[in-house]
Structure formats: C-alpha cells, structure tokens
C-alpha cells in the first residue's frame, strides 16, 4: 500500500486515492489532424518503463485533487507528487 504525499493533505494511505491510469501525452487539441497510426498510439500505447513512470491519482477520499506522481515501477518509490497534469 503506497503512501502518497498529497501537496494539500500530506502523507496519506493509498486507500484514500483512486488510480487514474498512466500519464498519457496530452490529448491533442484537434484529434482529426492526427493520422490514424498516431491517434491509435495516443490511445493505446502507454509508457511502460522499468523505472520512473508518471501516473494520475485522484484523492477522491481526501481533498479531491488530481495528482500526478512519479513512481518507480520496480521499487514503487515515489519521487515526485504534483497537482494536476
């Protein structure tokens, strides 16, 4: 169970949060401008490193913030927590 240091609330148990998926690149302003292959990549291909990955967590049962955290997928150590994307 992770301990996530929410910038508003401080260190809180993972059970207060909802996992919101890996941080994908920002959604393009105009998806129709992308060719098919790029759009498919945007939707389906997440970064999947052995090491730091950015992911979204919703502090649903706490202050309600959406956080982006940088977490090592091997050690689970969290290097950074920030508000928003």
């Amino acid at each position, binding site marked *: 169970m992770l301990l996530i240091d929410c910038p508003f*609330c401080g260190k*809180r148990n993972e059970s207060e949060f909802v996992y919101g998926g890996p941080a994908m690149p920002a959604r393009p302003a105009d998806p129709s401008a992308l060719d098919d292959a790029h759009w498919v990549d945007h939707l389906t291909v997440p970064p999947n490193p052995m090491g730091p990955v950015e992911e979204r967590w919703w502090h649903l049962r*706490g*202050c*309600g*913030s959406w956080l982006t955290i940088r977490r090592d997928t091997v050690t689970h150590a969290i290097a950074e927590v920030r508000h928003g994307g």
Partner: protein
Amino acid sequence: MGYDATITQLPLRALFDLQGEPSAIGDWCGDALPAFPERPNSVSERDGRTLIWTGPDHWLLSAPLGAEAGLSEELRPDDAPADIGVTALSDTVTFFAVTGPDAGAVMAVATPLDLHPDTFPADAASWTESFGTKALIRRIGEGYEIAVDRSYSDWFGAMLDRVVA
C-alpha cells in the same frame, strides 16, 4: 469485552459546499462565514458555524440544521457568480460521534488516518477513508466525529457497532 466507547448517530446539519478562490467566496458570502481556516484540513468557527478547509479551493460550511434556511438566504446558492460554487449538501452525509475512553482505539480500527495530536490537532478536520469509503473526521470534546455519505450510513453504523461490540 469490547471497547469502552459509544457510537451515536447525530442529526442532520446544514451543510454548504463552497468552491472557488477564497477572495471570490468571501466577496459573495460576506459575513455568513467564519474566517477562512489557516491550515489545510482544519476548521474555524464562529457563532455555531464551522468552516472546514477540505481541499484546494474547497470548503465545507456547517451549522445546526435550524440555520439551514437562513444560511440559504444569506448564501443564495442559485445566484452565486460563475467563478464560485455554492451548493447545499445538508442531506449528503450522516454524522456519527465516537466517544468514550477507547474512542481512539475504535478510530484506529476505522481509519488509516493518523489521529495523533501532533498530526491531527484539536482544530483538525479532514476527508479520509474509513472501512473503504470516504469519510470526514473531526475531533470533538471526548472523541471524534465521523461522517459518511448518507447512503452508506446503515452499513457504516453496523460496522462501527461491530468494532465496539
């Protein structure tokens, strides 16, 4: 033998959800509110009204249910400007009081939040998790107050009773 603690379901309260910049909220709500609390997840109180800073740009105003109509007139939720949110939420949560010598032990079963006075002092209040659901916790005189979404309150009460039993 169980815990020396009492679980009491408390009556509804007048609750208003406030969202937006404090200055904008202050402009609109004027004297209706106590001063804004100074620390995240803490409360300020005045005239029986309690303001809890629950999230960035997010506050919860609470008062006895009798004050609901009056507050509603003061705060005029439907007319609030676009940049703030004022929403009546009195019915959304059910409050329980956990009191008695073992209240702390009961809370330690109920929630992972660290309620040590160093981290959760007398004026602290926070949303957290309890038995897997969202819960608002506050210190009261001889124990704690814990509130959950009203739809979960039967189950939640049963859960607390099990802990104490």
